[in-house]
């Protein structure tokens, strides 16, 4: 069983009290516990089972404008005493930074909204095994599938965030995750692909058969890929890649990158960075949302932000420290975005596919080719050649490249947005990018 709120807040207040006694002028603590159980299958047989029980504490102490932090997984009193003493001592010896402080009191969350993020259902290992058997039977029904690996994870966690301004709140959440990775083989190639489902509530996850079937289909269609010539061509990003474009946008408007001057979107507030049709939201209060949260990792309340309105950048993602540096108030984004999404576009998926006589449909990218400083983008990619709206043949060993500044202006979105993950995008077309191949 995971530790209850009482246990966690008792530990947190012990730490805050001790830090104060040792000379801290302010402090905050996060105490969390998560219990996770995973079963892995490979080729329709049990491969691994894993139970993990994690306790963690992290404490930040302030002495005036000086700050330091410690973290540990050992919550025994002796250890906490030693660590807090060390933390306060380190704080004394760390130079002042005028922007260091706890969040403004009036911004702290007043209540914990019930966002239905916790499902108490326990699924026994036998039932996980049953699910995985069905999944793998479905995934391996086609002879071209030569290897299957799948897993089922049940995850439960609870936390308390407390600070010396009287904030002491936390809540439980749960997640149920099933995934399937399949390998397909033919005479000339071997390919791998995957599918997964992740939900707060057990009854919302995809059923085993369709998950396995989807993974297998996505893998088989990649067999016998070809390499194409280098050219400038319209790209269509599958939803799972389009999500990544949105994540890059988020990291470029995070206040730390802005205040340090290391983002290509610095000074772009109230400027048009996307085409007119693009609207981007970050909505923290979606019921059962995978990114939902009542407050951020400093305790600041979170509200829905329309980050981009008709192509115009309206907000950065601001935490307390960088906010003070930029003369902005925190908007509750310490620790990142919540449920981030592009508002759906006007064209159907089908129409998007046939809007160019020839285009590439990208299903996977590899490499870390996004440069937040310059906006340059270059990654390895696999996908399909699409002609007149029809998938022709699979493609691999190519790269796609461009610069986000131009890419953002050339985005067209389909109307197929779904809320499957914490960051979501409809299928996306970007015109004018360069493909390098043969």
């Amino acid at each position, binding site marked *: 069983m995971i530790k209850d709120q009482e246990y966690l807040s008792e530990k947190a207040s012990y730490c805050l009290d001790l830090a104060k006694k040792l000379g801290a002028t302010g402090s905050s603590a996060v105490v969390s516990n998560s219990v996770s159980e995973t079963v892995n299958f490979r080729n329709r*047989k*049990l491969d691994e*089972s*894993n*139970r*993990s*029980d*994690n*306790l963690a504490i992290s404490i930040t102490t302030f002495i005036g404008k000086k700050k*330091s*932090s*410690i*973290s*540990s*997984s*050992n919550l025994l009193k*002796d*250890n906490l005493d030693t660590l807090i003493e*060390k933390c306060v001592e380190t704080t004394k010896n*760390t*130079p002042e*930074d005028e922007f260091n402080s706890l969040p403004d009191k009036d911004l702290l969350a007043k209540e914990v909204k019930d966002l239905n993020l916790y499902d108490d259902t326990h699924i026994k*290992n036998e039932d996980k095994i049953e699910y995985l058997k069905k999944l793998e039977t479905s995934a391996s029904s086609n002879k071209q599938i*030569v*290897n299957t690996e799948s897993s089922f994870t049940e995850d439960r966690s609870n936390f308390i965030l407390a600070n010396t301004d009287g904030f002491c709140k936390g809540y439980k959440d749960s997640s149920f995750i099933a995934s399937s990775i399949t*390998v397909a083989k033919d005479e000339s*190639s*071997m*390919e*791998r692909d995957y599918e997964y489902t992740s939900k707060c509530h057990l009854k919302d996850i995809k059923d085993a058969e369709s998950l396995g079937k989807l993974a297998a289909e996505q893998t088989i269609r990649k067999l016998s890929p070809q390499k194409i010539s*280098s050219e400038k061509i319209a790209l269509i990003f599958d939803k799972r890649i389009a999500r990544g474009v949105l994540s890059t946008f988020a990291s470029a408007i995070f206040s730390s990158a802005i*205040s*340090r*001057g290391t983002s*290509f979107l610095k000074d772009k507030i109230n400027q048009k960075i996307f085409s007119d049709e693009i609207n981007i939201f970050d909505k923290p209060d979606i019921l059962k949302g995978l990114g939902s949260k009542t407050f951020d990792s400093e305790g600041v309340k979170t509200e829905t932000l329309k980050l981009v309105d008709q192509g115009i950048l309206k907000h950065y993602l601001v935490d307390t420290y960088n906010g003070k540096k930029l003369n902005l108030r925190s908007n509750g984004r310490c620790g990142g975005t919540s449920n981030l999404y592009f508002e759906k576009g006007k064209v159907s998926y089908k129409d998007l596919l046939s809007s160019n006589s020839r285009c590439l449909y990208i299903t*996977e990218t*590899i*490499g*870390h*080719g996004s*440069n937040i*400083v310059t906006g*340059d983008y*270059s*990654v*390895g990619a*696999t996908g399909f050649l699409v002609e007149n709206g029809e998938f022709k043949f699979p493609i*691999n*060993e*190519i*790269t*796609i*490249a*461009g*610069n986000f500044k131009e890419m953002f202006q050339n985005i067209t979105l389909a109307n197929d947005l779904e809320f499957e993950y914490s960051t979501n995008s409809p299928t996306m077309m970007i015109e004018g990018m*360069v*493909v*390098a*191949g*043969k």
Partner: protein
Amino acid sequence: MRNFFEKSDLSRSEAENIVSNTLNKCDDGELFLEDSKSESIVLDDNKIKNSSYSSDLGYGFRAISGEVVAYSHSNDISKSSLKQSSESLKSTLKSTKGNYNHSIPKSNKKYYENINPIEQKSLKEKIEILNKVNDYLRSKDNNVKQVTANFSGEQKSIEIIRSGGETLSDVRPLIRFNVSVMLDKNGRKESGVYGIGGRNSYESYLKEDNWKKVCDEALRIASVNLESKPAPAGEMKVVLGPGWPAILIHEAVGHGLEGDFNRKKTSAFHNLMGQKVASEGVTIVDDGTIDNRRGSLSIDDEGTPTEKTILIENGILKNFMQDRLNARLMKTRSTGSGRRENYKHIVLPRMRNTMMLNGNHTQEEMIKSVDKGIFAVSFGGGQVDITSGKFVFNCTEAYEIINGKIGSPIKGATLIGDGPSILKEVTMVGNDMMLDPGIGTCGKAGQGVPVGVAQPSILISKMTVGGTKL
């Protein structure tokens, strides 16, 4: 040696009994105890941004029967917790009639000292150096707009208790120093990053001329990038510089030679043992035994002493990297490559220091032989798709080669290639092998472990360069 039972209601002999009772009908397994302490001090935007310290203590209990692995971990080293883990393992491996493999090779060799780098220098001294780094860089070039510099240090103490009471232990120091510089010249921004590290004390790394070298190198890379032009797109010849560019070897072939992917037949190399997989003259080893290197280990995380494993010898595939589980199932021996990020994770076969050995060409010869291509000197991260064999990495410093001469620097581009065939495209191997500066972290199945790489300059006859200039 760290005494893990000092403040616990669980005695060593009780722990040994639980381990033996749980594992006696299994094929393998162990109790892995770990105590790690780490610190990080960051200077950013002219200020000490963060000084943090972390201590983590816990165990991972593993039981293996046939191919099935049961694992349970916790940060509570106590009688009740270990018993609960034991029950959890037993319930997964219901009907086991395995034969516990007691044999584990022994070695007294140590490749690093038993030190705690964190305690060796005071916070004040470390902050002083970071401030000097900041001042040095900002005074050296007026275009410097941002400097981030950080130290991180850690000490990990591990102990492995096997069935029958056999115990093995290790204490592992690790440090890292990193500098990142951003330049802004007439509105154009570019950055450069450089770092050093190893299983060593701060003392040996932070002499003045040493940290200055790191600063100079980060600044040089950023300055080069300020002048860079769009990279070409398409297939061409590529000359790789010595040292860190060996992450190409790591991504392109290293991962594909790890035992688990080959046992599961998901690696493009699984049926190529004994066959020619690289050009003649190409020899690749994975070596855990180089003193003080980031990827070195005295024993791996299963207790097996590490070694220098020959993976490819003169073009022929000779060995995979193995942990105990995959070695047993593939009827071979562990190469001391069983590693885990920490006690929360299961063991996987992993790389240590992966190196391509010297040939007899010079870098000059290679560049002269190229009509149109690129010369790649430094890289950011890389990634591989094990199954299709396709891999990428991103250039952070590269130049055009035109008619045998190095031309202008080019913007960061991704290079993509095919792992199983790339080594056959290596047409010259240099005589200038270099180790990387000690900065690599390899990710696999969500676990990061420190690794090293090394290589001489090499010429690759054909790779796809992911630029924007057609």
